């Protein structure tokens, strides 16, 4: 049974199809990649998974439990956590307080302060523990979001472009952190523009374009897929007109 399973999800905004019949599986103990050009529907899919966006059709399952109609906070209590592409940190609180808020919502009997301290060290934010989050650099604020998500002790972790704003060495460290999390048994679903990072850490990759999964498989097969190359690198204009223009 997969930690996260998405079946046949469709979303429309007005007349525009944002997602058309998306299927996706994220296994525990692995990092699953979700890539695709901007506007492909990656963030919309995340919103559907965590319940911030209602789907027109389809099902979302966590650990085999159907959560399609469940409210956002109930999904979170079942072990789903996420970060946001457009930051949603608690800016008027300090880094430590951000983690505390998340830890205090859990009913697992662990001391929130201990959890917060542990995570500060794990994601490397001890130096910024007592700084207000809206005054730290964006790349680090993304780590605060990651730490906050981890403080809920999740089973499934959705990361929306977590590495943007990080420099090269920070990105490398970040990739290692992701692999460590997967080793611990987490199912990580990673939306990322840094294709190298995705290829390095993901065991399975989905490619979303115009609201549809156009390819999926292990990194090597994705690298070779012509559909992916067309979506990412472009094809001659004539071919584009007859090929990919299902929505615009």
């Amino acid at each position, binding site marked *: 049974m997969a930690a996260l399973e998405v079946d046949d999800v469709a979303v429309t905004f007005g007349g525009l199809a944002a997602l058309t019949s998306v299927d996706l599986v994220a296994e525990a103990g692995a990092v699953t990649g979700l890539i695709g050009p901007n506007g492909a529907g990656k963030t919309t899919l995340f919103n559907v998974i965590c319940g911030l966006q209602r789907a027109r059709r389809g099902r979302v399952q966590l650990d085999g439990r159907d959560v399609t109609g469940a409210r956002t906070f109930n999904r979170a209590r079942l072990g789903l956590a996420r970060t946001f592409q457009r*930051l949603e940190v608690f800016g008027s609180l300090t880094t430590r307080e951000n983690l505390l808020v998340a830890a205090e919502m859990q009913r697992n009997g662990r001391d929130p302060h201990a959890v917060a301290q542990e995570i500060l060290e794990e994601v490397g934010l001890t130096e910024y523990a007592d700084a207000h989050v809206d005054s730290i650099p964006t790349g680090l604020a993304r780590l605060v979001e990651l730490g906050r998500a981890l403080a809920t002790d999740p089973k499934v972790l959705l990361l929306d472009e977590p590495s943007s704003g990080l420099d090269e060495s920070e990105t490398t460290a970040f990739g290692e952190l992701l692999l460590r999390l997967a080793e611990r048994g987490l199912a990580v679903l990673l939306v990322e523009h840094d294709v190298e990072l995705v290829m390095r850490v993901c065991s399975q990759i989905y490619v979303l374009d115009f609201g549809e999964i156009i390819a999926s498989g292990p990194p090597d097969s994705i690298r070779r897929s012509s559909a992916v190359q067309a979506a990412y690198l472009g094809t001659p204009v004539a071919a584009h007109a007859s090929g990919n223009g299902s929505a615009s």
Partner: protein
Amino acid sequence: MDWNKLLELTIYGVALASIYAIAASGLVVTYTTSGIFNFAHGAIGMLMAFTYWQVRVQWGLPTWLSLLIVLGFVAPFTGAVIERTLIRNLRAAPLAVTLVVTAALMVGLMGVATVLWPPDQSRSLPAFFTGKTVSIGSTIVTYQQLLTIGLAVLLAILLKALFTWTRTGIAMRAVVDSRDLVALNGGRPVMLSTLSWALGAMLAGLAGILLASGPIGIGLVIEALTLVVINAYAAALFGRLRSIPLTFVGALIIGLAQQYTVGYSITKNAFFNTQIVPVVPYLLLFVALLLMPEGRLRGAQLVHAIKIRVPSLRTSVIWSGVLVLGGWVVAELVTGTNLTTISKGLAIGIIMLSLVPLTGYAGQISLCQMTFAGIGAFAMSRVASSGTTVGFGSLGIGNGSPLGLLAAFVLAAAVGALIALPAIRLQGLYLALATMAFAVIMSSAFFEGGAIFGTGSTDAGAVQRPDFGMFSLSSNGAYLVFLSVVFGLVAIGVLALRRGPFGRRLLALRDSPAAVATLGGSPTRTKLLVFSLSAGLAGLGGALYGGVDRNVTPGQFSFFGPPGSLAVFVLAVVGGVATVTGPLIGGQLLLLVPVFFTWLGTKLKTDLTPYAQVLFGLAGIGLGRNPGGAVVEISTRFRALVSGRMPRETEMEANGPPIEALLVPGSPLGAPIAESQLLELDALLDLEEVSGLGRA
């Protein structure tokens, strides 16, 4: 069935609805383009009606010229000036600040009108086309009614056309969604915003003039005119503050409902006729709000978060001690009504403290805290007295039983939870308006009903001071010291709350409800809890407030007061609602300023009370510049003075790298613009073919 009466009431209703529609569409126009709800809309309408009287009656200019001067020049100019000087600075301000600034503007404009047109002289406006009527059957319709209805229809068409077909109108609609994108596309959001406020003021002015001269018979009365336009807010809410056609439908519902309920005494129940009928527009406003679809959870917004140092337990205990000592000194030095005024200010301060967790921490707005205070006073009066037999009678637990204070907290908190249940899912502005409607409805249907605090007889309004046996609170001095103790304790409690898990959760909720939900917290449950807690504290404050004079009147717990829920909210925010010192100052301001102006007035032998109103207005408006409130502003400057540096610098140093400190996370400027963001921008601007990176 009396068809003639029905027809007559319908025509009256439609004419009234037409005025509401005109006023409400002005509100919609300003809201859609600036994103700011103009509480002062009614006051602008009132001011224009008076200006029209000045030009038309006092100076005797012809009707057409007077209309041209007022609606073609004075009103648009006033609207534009308000936008330029006040509204523009509020774009990134929290909702509480924008509400306070426009509400203060309303109070200020009412003060200005009182100064310019003292109410001791009666004024009236001639009706348009005096005496000209047409008959439909046996029903007589005045030309003015036809004119009003015709104008509304014409405006509906014109506004719809403006927003649908003209470049300017479409740009106006676009501005509210994304100012920056409109600017990037070559639009001029700043200009559009000014334009819409000019148009909004013009529509308010037209509504004001029609009301003052029309068949409705409001006449030129400052408060009444201002308030009637507020009825139009309900109409605007039917249109969700966006849709002009739905706004007109809403106006029609309200106008007709009002005329029918007035015209047909539906029941022979006198209470229904005198206490419920007048608040029909507010009942409809409440219903309209409850029918609003649940919005998506809001994410982080571009709001200047003001960082406020949270005092430690030690510090807050020490300062509370200082306050009690100060209370004792004042009690020794001051006597008579000055002493009770200060006591009332302190009790109001406790009520304002109830807004600290709710507004200061959670960012939610309540415009009905005095309603909860009234419920608290009611509970105290019935639990802790032995005599009263009026209304619900007395529990007769005993004179001044401290159980009364507990009852005040519990009953107010329960009512708060009850009202919050349907309303709490509403966001920001809508919750604020729902609480306003609740305050007005409760004021008329509950407090003024006679059974609660009587209607003139002092017996029902008697509120005992708590009696703790060993120390007597019967002297006014002792009561002031007691109030200082309670204020100090509540302040310590509120600050302890802020340092603990619940306080963190409240700030998190203010910063991003969406993130709270994805972490497993229920935003609705948290809001419900804090709303109920806040109501309970207000109830406690209300019971103590009643004890100052040992008597209360219904008017004290109304929306406008005095002191009233609106002023309590405004001055709490002006003082600094995220601090506990703010309410202390706010409460004293609310009570002492009018006393001071009255005193100065008697010395100078002129009536200075309207100037007090203007001063309140200016204080609120000043908040636009210092959104943290007076306490934060003063303490920042004081620290700057002590350290000999500019405030901005100290702030920066304490908070990390200077460049990042200027950038707000979540905004596109929060980081160097990444390629992905450029692509996103291109997609939004429909420029795929140019970029050549994202999509072929």
